[in-house]
């Protein structure tokens, strides 16, 4: 049995130039990272940083022009094993409307299993399980257009979960949602990671989501800029701002105060931590 992890080594990706001689476009410029099973990783970067291109390499939508991506021992360049890879690494996209295929929620969740030729009774069971995991079971007979954005996105996640993948990659799953839908989706992702030990790779540009991960990878200009715990990464306020990213309001406040020579810890990420620190300071 191969080790359950995604291994990226020396990943280079260039969009080819066209026949009229337009030059190719280098998006990923040599990335190395390993995503072990069970982790909740946030990949943070602004639009055009290459983070989505990176995500598309995890399940062989794109294959490297240089270097390798190995998923559970399978090289993504191995075309014969494509379905094995896609079963291991599920992918959820930004627009919930454009990834739901069927007109009934449970039919959509069943879609991948039907494609894989799973026997009907087994499909039924796995569809029900997946819908319960994302807390959408009671909506199983609804039509997608009757659901809110957050609910649709959870259905899309269920459609991936039904394949029982070890990894689930979400490419900006909350960018088109309202705050309520956003928190629904993030809560669902966190529960999956905690309760079912699904490895989660969350591609995002919202720092408040990245803060909740085990590990934050900052991608900028096709390279990995930082890779560490949220506390390590977000303490570098200046650096993050310079690549067009935000830090939480409380982190920024504490950073600004520290710049003025005020004695505060540098790894403050949450409201609670900020409150405690300021209370101590002012008391």
């Amino acid at each position, binding site marked *: 049995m191969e080790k359950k992890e995604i291994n990226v080594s020396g990943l280079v990706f260039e969009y080819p130039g066209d026949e009229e001689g337009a030059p190719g476009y280098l998006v990923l410029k040599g990335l190395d990272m390993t995503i072990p099973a069970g982790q909740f990783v946030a990949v943070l970067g602004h639009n055009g940083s290459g983070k989505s291109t990176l995500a598309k390499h995890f399940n062989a*939508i794109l294959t490297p022009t240089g270097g390798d991506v190995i998923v559970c021992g399978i090289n993504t360049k191995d075309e014969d094993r494509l*379905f094995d890879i896609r079963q291991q690494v599920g992918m959820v996209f930004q627009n919930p409307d454009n990834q739901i295929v069927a*007109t009934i929620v449970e039919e959509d969740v069943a*879609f991948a*299993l*039907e494609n894989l*030729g799973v026997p009907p009774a087994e499909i039924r069971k796995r569809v029900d399980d997946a819908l319960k995991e994302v807390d959408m079971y009671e909506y199983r007979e609804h039509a*997608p*257009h009757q659901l809110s954005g957050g609910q649709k996105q959870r259905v899309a996640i269920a459609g991936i979960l039904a394949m029982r993948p070890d990894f689930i990659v979400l490419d900006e799953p909350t960018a088109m949602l309202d705050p309520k839908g956003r928190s629904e989706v993030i809560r669902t992702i966190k529960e999956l990671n905690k309760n079912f030990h699904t490895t989660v790779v969350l591609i995002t540009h919202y720092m408040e989501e990245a803060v909740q991960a085990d590990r934050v990878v900052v991608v900028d200009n096709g390279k990995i800029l930082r890779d560490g715990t949220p506390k390590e990464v977000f303490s570098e306020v200046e650096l993050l701002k310079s690549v067009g990213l935000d830090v939480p309001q409380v982190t920024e406040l504490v950073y600004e105060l520290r710049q003025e020579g005020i004695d505060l810890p540098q790894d403050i990420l949450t409201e609670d931590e900020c409150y405690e620190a300021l209370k101590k300071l002012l008391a």
Partner: protein
Amino acid sequence: MLKDITIGQYFPGHSPVHRMDPRMKLLLTIFYIVILFCVSNPFGFIPAVLFLAGCYMVSQIPIKMIAKSIKPILPIIIFTGILNLFFIEGESVLVQLGPIHISWQGIYTSVKMALRLVLLIAGTSLMTYTTSPIALTDAIEQLLSPLKVVHFPAHELAMMMSIALRFIPTLVEETDKIMSAQKARGADMDSGGLIQRAKALIPIMIPLFISAFRRAEELALAMECRCYHGGEGRTRMKQLKYSHLDFVALGVTTVLLVIIIILNIIPMPFLNWLL
């Protein structure tokens, strides 16, 4: 306004009609349409109407839904009705005005045609009200699957239909949104001649097409990520199976056909003046 289209709208439920196999529903709907065109005796419409009314009752679909489904084709019904009324040659003429004449035969034919159309729409609507579109596409796929031998793309056809059904509400909503957005920029869609109105559609159609293509591209990618590779080796979660319910329905419909044929055969000389 655009959202009021109800043909093809499914009303979830658990009535016997809902539980029937969609293939049987599809076949019986076709069967019923054929029966409607077999009716030649005016009394034949009575069992045909009663049959459908019974079906609606069993299905627990509100009768007023019939009115809703007929509304869009009402102009056609009225138009054919008027044509028949004025231009059917008949012996018992009531009114004569140049080429236009109203006869009892004309009245009878126009009522008959209108009734036939109404029953036809009501019947097919009952099928779409009680059958989820996906079940319907499944049924079509299954019924057409013997044609795969001659390379008829039954699965692809069904998949296309099901995706179309899935995206109709999305695109309707999107059309509404784009229309509002262009109106907010002063687009005038309600006045001017035919050509001007057609031109006014450009700012709506182009964004709509672009969006549809973008959606198609993203959907294709999402489907690939879920291991879609055509119909080969595919299983279905919901297996279609005929049950006793389906055979009962088939029996009842056959009885209807028999009644109508009998009514057609029985000589009714008192009706001769009308036919």
